[in-house]
């Protein structure tokens, strides 16, 4: 059963030099990433949605009024939310089971939609139930925190960088659970992060914040493949495309992916079952351009494409936006200014896009 409640708000607050000024509608389904640098106001915004922070403005959740300037302000415990904090923040005086039951016990029976036993199994917590939070690893703690949040049967799940306090191994352990939030949950999730990788893997929608203002919002796949992506420190430009894993070629250790408009890609064998929907991230530096279909090349993926836009960013380089046949899928390619001039490239030109490598985003 889907509970279709979008959240709509306009919020304003200022603290010293920082001010937050946003007006947003967040969809009633899927994972919405609030993305931005530290200090962009994304955590403040998430806390305001939870009711942990008081901002001026209004906030409506479906038909419920959570906040109305000067008249209504629901406390966090009155909002049907759950919040997963950056550090797991388990109650140290309760064991794992008691932590899990904390929110469950405070949810009226007729509103309980999440089963304790199922959640424990799903997040693999059976063997931890009697343990104290002190004795758990970082990944285990965050799993308990996620389960504890889900067990309060929220209608909106808020997550504040749930992976950022974890090491690589623990992140890899948590990721699959976050991905399965899509299929397991029918409620909207708002996910704060500063990591492009997490947006690419998890997000359906994306809101990018800078200095307390919304600078981009929309479907994550669209935004990530845009030419004029807002620069994010340490993140390479690149496109994210959705594909269905058609088959594995065991002999060559390859996977065949079918894309929209009947296109096919060959990728190094992916760790997923045939038939599953995957997200592929193709960094712009891995895509080169040639005028004719090259012969005798080692590159597996060569697709006809049309140049639809370009931008000059770094000196000596051009970032090119390509549209594949069928007009649905867009790639980004970064080539040298020299090649751009030598090949006589321009908007509307038909070319061949050569994809050197790609990686699984989801």
């Amino acid at each position, binding site marked *: 059963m889907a509970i279709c409640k979008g959240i709509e708000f306009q919020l304003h607050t200022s603290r010293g030099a920082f001010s937050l000024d946003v007006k947003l509608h967040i969809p009633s389904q899927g994972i919405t990433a609030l993305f931005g640098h530290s200090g962009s106001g994304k955590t403040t915004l998430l806390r305001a949605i939870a009711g*942990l922070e008081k901002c001026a403005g209004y906030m409506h959740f479906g038909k419920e009024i959570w906040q109305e300037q000067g008249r209504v302000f629901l406390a966090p415990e009155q909002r049907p939310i759950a919040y997963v*904090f950056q550090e797991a923040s388990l109650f140290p005086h309760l064991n794992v089971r008691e932590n899990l039951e904390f929110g469950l016990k405070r949810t009226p029976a007729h509103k309980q939609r999440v089963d304790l036993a199922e959640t424990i199994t799903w997040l693999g917590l059976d063997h931890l139930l009697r343990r104290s939070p002190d004795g758990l690893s970082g990944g285990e703690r965050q799993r308990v925190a996620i389960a504890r949040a889900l067990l309060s049967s929220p209608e909106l799940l808020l997550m504040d960088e749930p992976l950022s306090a974890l090491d690589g191994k623990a992140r890899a352990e948590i990721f699959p659970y976050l991905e399965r939030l899509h299929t397991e949950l029918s409620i909207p999730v708002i996910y704060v992060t500063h990591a492009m990788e997490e947006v690419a893997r998890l997000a359906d929608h994306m809101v990018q914040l800078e200095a307390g203002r919304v600078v981009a919002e929309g479907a994550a796949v669209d935004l990530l493949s845009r030419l004029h992506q807002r620069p994010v420190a340490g993140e390479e430009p690149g496109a994210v495309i959705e594909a269905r894993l058609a088959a594995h070629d065991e002999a060559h250790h390859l996977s065949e992916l079918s894309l929209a408009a009947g296109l096919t890609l060959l990728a190094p064998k992916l760790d997923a079952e045939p038939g599953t929907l995957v997200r592929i991230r193709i960094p712009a530096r891995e895509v080169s351009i040639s005028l004719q279909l090259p012969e005798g090349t080692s590159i597996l993926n060569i697709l006809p494409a049309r140049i639809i836009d370009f931008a000059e960013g770094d000196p000596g380089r051009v970032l090119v936006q390509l549209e594949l046949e069928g007009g649905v899928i867009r790639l980004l390619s970064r080539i040298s200014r020299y090649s751009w001039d030598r090949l006589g490239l321009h908007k509307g030109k038909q070319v061949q896009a050569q994809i050197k490598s790609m990686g699984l985003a989801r």
Partner: protein
Amino acid sequence: MLIDWQPVWLTLKLATLTTVLLLLIGTPIAWWLSQTGSRFRHAISAVVALPIVLPPTVLGFYLLVFLGPHGPGGAFTTWLGLGTLPFTFAGLVVASVFYSLPFVVQPIQNAFEAIGKRPLEVAATLGAGPWDRFFSVAVPLARPGFLSAMVLGFAHTVGEFGVVLMIGGNIPGETKVLSVAIYDHVETLEYAQAHILSAGMVGFAFVVLLGLYLVNGRFTSASARHEGRA
């Protein structure tokens, strides 16, 4: 030789009653001080801490004046039909509550402050209202502070002398507590009795403090292990 147990029991009765009252009075004060952003909080903190700095005789003197037949407190208790409190056990309890207040409020306040906002925020997002958060999260997490507060409040009340002398006097079975009894023995050159009671007090104080440090040490090292893993 006969030990006079009466002052011992009276002292234990006084200290127990005072500790219970102080937990009831001190906990809300400590909670308010730990949570409030009010500009009056420093003033209130200073008032609570006054008995640490003031000579007990000053506190006793003002309580005597306040609770005496011509003071507002005395007028009030008379109006209630309780008579005046100085030189009664009830008066001693009131005085002890004032005298030991900081020793109960401060450890509890420190423990509440050490919890930080996060566990309370987590509890709120999981549906716990203010009272629920206080009893199911704040109080259990502040347990070491409550232990310290109880031990210090009790021990400090056992050890008071100046205030007792000012407001309680020396009435056997009513206001003659241990410290006064020892003073009495010395005045009348009964050194043997004074020795017995004094040595008992030294032993008592040592055991209480040792117990406190052991218990708090266990908590601290447990939380240090916790931090280390985080």
